[in-house]
Every structure is written in C-alpha cells, then in structure tokens.
C-alpha cells in the first residue's frame, strides 16, 4: 500500500514542473550571460573614459602615459599613411611570420624531444641536467647573440622565438608522456601494439592535453621573442615600431603598437582554441552549473 502511494506521489510530480524548471534555468543563464557582457563593457568604457578625462584635465600627463584618443589617432595614421618604415600591414606581416615560424619550429622540436626523452629513460637521465641549465638561463639575452650571428634579418628573430617556445613545450610534452596511464599502455601492449604503435596511439594522444595547454602559453612567448628580437635590431616589424616610437618619445606610438600586438595574440589564441576543440573532442564537457 505504502509503495503504491509513493509511486503515485512520484508519478504525480507533473512533467510540466520539470519543463518549467529547465525553462527557468535557461532564462537565468541567459540573464547572467547578458549581465556579464554588460559589466565587461561598462568596465572598459569606465577605464578608457577615466584615462581620457584624466589626460584632458591634466591629472595624467599624456606625454608619458598617452591617452586613448592619442593611441587611436596613432593607429589610424599608421593604417592610412603607413609607418616610418613602410606600410603597417607589412610590419604586422613580418612580425607575424617570425612569430609563427618560431612557434612552429619550437613547438615541433619541443614535442619531438619531449616525447623522445619521455619514452627513453636513459636519454632523459643523461640530458635532464643540461635541459635544466638551459632552462634557467634568461633566454631573451640570447637575442643579442642571434643578432650578431644571424644578422638583422628574419633568422635572428625566428631563432629567438624558437628558443623561447622550445623549453615550454618540451617540458610539457615530457611531463605528458610521463603521466600517460600505465594500465592504458599495458592494455595496448597486450592488445598487440608495438612500441612505435604505443607511442603513436597511446602516448601522443594522452600527452596531447599537456602539449595543447603549453601551446597557449608558448605562442605568447614566441611573440615576445620576435618583438624583442626586432627591438634589439631589425629593419622591419612591430618591435622596430616600438623602438622607433621610444626614440622619439612617442608614448602613443608605444601603446598603439602594444594594442596591435595584443589583437594579434588574441586572434591566434582564438585559432588555437578552435584547433584544440577539434583535437580533444573526446574530452568530457564540464556540466554547466545552472543546467
């Protein structure tokens, strides 16, 4: 009897209730989302507005700290009239090319050596000391060496970007290989996988989350490498624009170049996220809190 009543009580929970619940949750989620967006815009406008007002009314000295309108004007001039070393798009293209080349070479090298040393205990034991030493050197300093050795062209910037990227990716790939699940490797082995098949089908996929995480960070490093390289000596590039602006006490120019670099980094970050989503679509999606 009791069980019947219980069953009836459970059955009586109207399905419309559930639908209403889901509906309410959706509305709440949407409201929250629009609130977040609004607040972001409000903060941006407030900061830029206060900065601009401060500059206009003499609270902030625009000579040292620039002003939003000045930065915008500078970008506009660069876009319409070009920079002192040629059109703006050319500078961006050069910097981007150096960054991407350095990023690709560094990432591929880092992944390759990370997996090689991760899979080979003896090599890892021999080389680990040197890698630690190389990693502890402030690598930006190598930029001067590269410019002496490779000249003012693209090669020296690419080399600096490679060095910046390599160690980050290497460390992550190495750790990713080491963290690969023992049972999964044993499973593949017993299912009949050879050593190289294990590397390809178990080790690399399981190190992939680590590697992708490092790629996010290391693209920023590649950009730093390229810009610092240009800063130290170059004929073209956004880094050179910064150093030129610095030489003419043009704070707006420095900030404008910074904005351009930030936009570049964000665009590439977005592309990397897209690639990551495709590569690790097997990963569980986190449950949304409101759902």
């Amino acid at each position: 009897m009791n069980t019947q009543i219980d069953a009836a009580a459970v059955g009586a929970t109207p399905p419309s209730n559930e639908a209403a619940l889901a509906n309410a949750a959706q509305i709440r989620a949407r409201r929250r989302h629009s609130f977040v967006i609004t607040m972001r815009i409000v903060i941006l406008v407030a900061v830029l507005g206060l900065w601009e007002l401060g500059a206009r009314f003499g609270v902030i000295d625009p000579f040292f700290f620039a002003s939003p309108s000045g930065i915008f004007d500078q970008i506009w001039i660069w876009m319409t009239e070009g920079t002192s070393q040629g059109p703006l798009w050319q500078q961006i293209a050069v910097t981007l090319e150096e960054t991407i080349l350095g990023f690709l070479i560094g990432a591929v090298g880092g992944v390759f050596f990370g997996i090689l040393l991760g899979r080979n205990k003896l090599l890892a034991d021999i080389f680990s000391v040197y890698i630690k030493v190389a990693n502890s050197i402030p690598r930006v300093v190598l930029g001067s060496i590269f410019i002496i050795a490779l000249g003012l062209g693209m090669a020296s910037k690419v080399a600096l970007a490679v060095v910046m990227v390599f160690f980050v990716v290497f460390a992550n790939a190495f750790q990713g290989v080491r963290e690969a699940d023992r049972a999964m490797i044993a499973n593949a082995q017993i299912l009949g996988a050879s050593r190289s098949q294990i590397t390809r089908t178990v080790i690399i996929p399981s190190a992939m989350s680590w590697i992708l995480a490092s790629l996010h960070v290391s693209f920023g490093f590649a950009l730093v490498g390229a810009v610092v390289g240009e800063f130290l000596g170059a004929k073209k590039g956004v880094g050179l624009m910064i150093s030129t602006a610095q030489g003419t006490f043009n704070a707006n120019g420095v900030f404008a170049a910074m904005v351009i670099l930030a936009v570049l980094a964000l665009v590439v970050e977005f592309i990397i996220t897209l690639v990551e989503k495709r590569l690790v679509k097997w990963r569980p999606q986190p449950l949304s809190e409101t759902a």
Partner: protein
Amino acid sequence: MVDRNDGDMPRRAPFLRVPKYFGQLGHFGQLGRSRAAPNVHADQRRPNAAGVQHMLQTSPAAQSASTRIAPAASSDVAIDLSNVTRRFVTPDGKAMTALRDFTMTVARGEFACVVGPTGCGKSTTLNLITGLAPPTAGEVRVMGQPVSGIRPDIGFVFQTDALFPWRSVLDNVAAGPMYRGASRKQAYEKARDWLNRVGLSRFEKHYPHQLSGGMRKRVALAQTFINEPKILLMDEPFSALDIQTRTLMQDELLRLWEDSGASVVFVTHDLEEAVALADKVYVLTAGPATVKSVYHIDLPRPRVMEDIRYDPKFVEIARVIWEDLKQEVHIGQKRTLEFGH
C-alpha cells in the same frame, strides 16, 4: 553430485597432484579441517600427508576425486606456474617479495580464481603469466612454452578503466585487430560483431566518458575477446562496479567465456564472486603470497549469477573457503596496522 561436470571434458579441472606438495615448505593450514563440505575438496598444503589423505577419503566427493588425481597430460595444461618466486626492488631500494614458492596449474578451458587478502600479491600472478614481470625463481609456462614476452593469445581485463578515452567505442574495440595488422574495414567489421554480442551496437560512436561504468566494462570485454584469446587474465575487473551491475557483468563474462573456450585466471578479493564464477579457487596467504589451499567448485554450469548466491550449496562452499581465507585476512590486516603497508 560432484561429478556433474564429468560430461564436460574440456572444462574439467585436472586435479593437482597431491604428492607434489609434500616436498615443499609445508604451509600450515589449520588442522582438523576434515569436515570439508561434501562438494568442496581442498588440496591443502600441509606437512602432514596423512591429513590430506584422510580428508580425501572421508568425503564421498573426495573419493571420486582421488581417482582423478593423476598427472594431467601436459597438452591439457594451459598455464603452469611452478615454485615461482617474484622479488622486486622498491623505488627506495628495499627488496620486496611479492610471491613465494607459488604453484598453480590451469587447464585449457578452465576458470580459475585467485583470492587473497588485500595487497598480498594477487595481481603479480597475472603479470607473471603475461611476461610483464619475469619470475625471480621458478618457472612459468603457458601452453607448454616458457614465457618470454607478451603472447598474442593472451587477453587482459584491467581493474581500472584502460580504454582509450580519445577513441570512440568502435575504435576501442577495433584496436586489437588494427594493432595486429588487420585492415580498417576488417577490424571494424569484427568490432561491430563484438559490439553486437555485448549489446552496445547503438553506442559505437560514443566516447568512453559518455558511457556508464558497466557499459565501459562491456567495451573492455569486447576489446579483449575480439582477439580471441586462449588465455584470459582478469585483475579484479568488476571491483569498481556497483553490485547489481557486477552481477550482470559476471553473467556476461561467463557467457562470452563459455563460447570462447579460453582458460581464465581471475583475480579478486571478493570470495563470493570467485566461488560463483570459478571451477577452481586458489586461496593465497597474506603477503608474500603463496598458495594456501585450492578448492574445486562443483557447482553445475551454466550458472546464473543472479540466483547462485542463494543456492545452499554455494553458501556452504563459500562458508568453508571463507573460514580458510579469514585467517589470512586477519594476518594481512594486522600487518597493515603494524607496519603501515
């Protein structure tokens, strides 16, 4: 009553040769264990030969068994571990003995379970058979050959989830044939057949994280059985499942195994699971593990897991073996509390 399995030739246990034990280090099973249940016969390692004989002669079941105690033809033996000791060095440089003087024989088509207290070295037996862990002393033979490297006719089901999370269910099951050089088309065809057998055809495009624990185990079983193993090793495969799912999976396993004719070594700490599944149960001592006793389970097949645990015969067998295992569990527990490992 005992010989119900007699018509069932390939599955019948070749009884361990009792005299074989006498020369070995006697292990001290509790004496006075002559009131073995009629359908359990234990070959117990003890220095006292008369004790064993006595026991064998008191029960009618054992009597018929004694007629069967003859050296099994070597072609019938699938797995043979004789006097195996396995020591290894821990990362902090201490030598540990996981297994000492361990002897076990599994016939072709036989289902053997290994039970023992937690952490006694049960899983080591499986690693010896795969060749992933070489023995320090003694000999391991599989299908009559000494073990050297991983044999292609071995299947292994792990305790933890060893599926590849980045592969779909279909790709997970097809992994074995693909590793072994089958074309993608052949491998998929075979994998679809096996998915059908474990009832997961509708889920071939899913990823492991989208499945329940029981479904993931089904995938693991299909992944293992697709290679048609002659030796099937299972390391507490169902221990992470809830009890209802576990019962279903045990049924599933028995069904797949009965079609395959494989020899099974199934490691578990769950005695009831062991009795329900096995032809033969090995009770191990608290570590370093060695065989304490061997029991032959004469429950008729096919067995239905949902009902078997209420079968009075099952209950009696489980009770008898538990008496034996209990002591080792207590020793293991005490040691853990004293030494913290």
